[in-house]
């Protein structure tokens, strides 16, 4: 199950709708092993495509180094689907490399009603999980949140 603050959900949806019809992408970092998404980092989509995304490699290096220095990991890896349902595509599955991450998909096609869904992708297997949206974190954690 993914437990996530409503402000982080809202920020992902806003970013996805702003970038539509180009796929949006990013991560939410959190303390290693915490399973708690805290710091939302929008990533540049180097593919600039309506049906594909790839994190800009230079930005990815900087963000990954920063996470390492802060003892963080990508708790959520998110991207949008601009004309299909919020379910991992074949390439989403083939290219998934973070088994501990929650892979969140935000549909921006109006038919799908912005229903954000979350998945684990491990060894090419997709498991959908529940998304529990909370209105607050513990106060000290909420101060660290970047949405």
């Amino acid at each position: 199950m993914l437990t996530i603050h409503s402000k982080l959900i809202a920020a992902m949806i806003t970013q996805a709708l702003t970038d539509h019809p180009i796929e949006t992408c990013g991560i939410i970092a959190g303390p290693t092993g915490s399973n708690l998404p805290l710091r939302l980092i929008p990533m540049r989509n180097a593919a600039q495509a309506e049906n594909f995304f790839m994190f800009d490699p230079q930005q990815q290096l900087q963000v990954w180094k920063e996470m390492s220095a802060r003892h963080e990991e990508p708790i959520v890896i998110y991207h949008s689907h601009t004309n299909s349902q919020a379910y991992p595509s074949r390439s989403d599955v083939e290219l998934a490399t973070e088994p501990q991450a929650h892979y969140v998909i935000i549909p921006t096609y109006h038919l799908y009603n912005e229903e954000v869904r979350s998945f684990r992708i491990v060894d090419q297997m997709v498991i959908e999980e529940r998304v529990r949206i909370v209105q607050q974190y513990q106060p000290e954690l909420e101060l660290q949140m970047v949405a």
Partner: protein
Amino acid sequence: MSITVIIPTILRPLTNEQKRIDMEGAKVSEIIDHMEQQYPGIKEKLVAGESAHRFINIYVNDNDIRFQDGLATNLRDGDIVTILPAVAGG
């Protein structure tokens, strides 16, 4: 010529769970060949034909080798080679 290589989570099962390994080599390709000797199976995860896999990012210090000489990129003593699988999908 001692080079530090940073290994991503997904490849650590091949490196006895080591995150950083020290390797010798004057080019990125030599580093990968030496890694293959110590950690068999890692090369095919990184290289396709004459270049790095499309969805594997390799950096020397802060520079993506795509914008240098690819696997022929020269290394200097103390350089850090970082391997990061691209985050991508459809």
